[in-house]
C-alpha cells in the first residue's frame, strides 16, 4: 500500500458522501447535527484506515456511521427515532442506500457546473478567473479592483460550496431561497454549511 492515506480517503470514501448524508438524515432526529455526524464519521474512518485499510471502503464507512449513531444515541439517551426504529433497521437502511449517485464523470461535471452557477456573482467571477483562466490571486484582485484578502475569502467560500455539490451531490436539490427545481425527495434536507 504505497498510496497515501489522504488520496485513498478522497477516492474511496468521499465518493459516498451523498448516500452517507442521506443515511444520516433519514436516521438521525436532529437535522442540524448531520454535518457534525458526517465529519465524525470521516474522522473515525480515517483513523481506523491509518492502522489498516478496510477491504470494502463503503461497507466500512456505513458501519462506522451506524456505530457512531448508536454511540450518540446511548450518550444522549435518545428515544425519538422514527416509530419502530431498531438496530436492525439501521442495517436495512444501509443496504437500501444506492451506490455513488454521481460517480460518472459527466454527472460530476454537471454537479460542478450547477454549483458554479449558484455561486454569488462576485464569487463566481473569482473562481472563473482563478480556476479556468488560471490567473493568480494577485491578478484577479487587480482586475476586479478588490483586495487579495477578499479574493481569498471568495475562494474559501467557493471551495465549501463546490465540495458540497461534488461530494454531497446537492446539485439537484433546491438551495434555500433560490429557484425551485421540480420536487424530488420531499423529505430530503440539504445541509447548509456556510
Amino acid at each position, binding site marked *: 500500500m504505497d498510496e497515501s492515506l489522504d488520496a485513498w480517503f478522497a477516492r474511496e470514501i*468521499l465518493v459516498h458522501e451523498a448516500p452517507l448524508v442521506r443515511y444520516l438524515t433519514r436516521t438521525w432526529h436532529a437535522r442540524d447535527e448531520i*454535518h457534525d455526524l458526517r465529519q465524525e464519521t470521516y474522522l473515525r474512518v480515517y483513523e481506523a484506515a491509518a492502522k489498516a485499510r478496510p477491504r470494502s471502503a463503503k461497507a466500512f464507512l456505513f458501519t462506522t456511521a451506524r456505530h457512531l449513531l448508536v454511540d450518540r444515541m446511548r450518550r444522549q439517551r435518545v428515544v425519538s427515532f422514527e416509530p419502530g426504529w431498531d438496530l436492525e433497521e439501521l442495517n436495512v437502511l444501509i443496504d437500501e442506500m444506492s451506490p455513488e449517485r454521481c460517480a460518472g464523470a459527466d454527472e460530476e461535471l454537471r454537479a460542478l457546473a450547477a454549483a458554479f452557477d449558484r455561486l454569488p456573482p462576485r464569487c463566481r467571477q473569482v473562481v*472563473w478567473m482563478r480556476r479556468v483562466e488560471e490567473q493568480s490571486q494577485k491578478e484577479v484582485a487587480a482586475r476586479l479592483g478588490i483586495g487579495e484578502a477578499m479574493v481569498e475569502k471568495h475562494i474559501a467560500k467557493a471551495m465549501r460550496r463546490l465540495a458540497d455539490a461534488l461530494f454531497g451531490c446537492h446539485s439537484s436539490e433546491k438551495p434555500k431561497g433560490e429557484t425551485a427545481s421540480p420536487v424530488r425527495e420531499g423529505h430530503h434536507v440539504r445541509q447548509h454549511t456556510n
Partner: protein
Amino acid sequence: MYDSIQIEGTAANWLARRDGEGWRAADQVELAQWLDASTAHRVAYIRLEAAWRKAHRLKALATGVLSRPSNDHGGVQTDSDQRR
C-alpha cells in the same frame, strides 16, 4: 454553531491562503501543525482540497464540453436545471 462547521471554515481559509502567492515555508509549517493537531482538521482539509482540485474541470465547461459561458466571466449556463 457546531465545531465541524467551524473546522470546515478554517480548512477553507487555509486552502485559499495556500492558493495565493504569499504562501511561505513558514505557512506550510503552520498548516502542517494545524493538520496534525486533529484528524477532524485533516479530513475537512482533504475534502475541500479534493473539491478544489476537481474544480479544475470547470475548464472543460469553458471549452464547450457541456456548454459555453454566457459572457466573459460572468457565468456558465447549463441545461442541467431544465433536465431535472
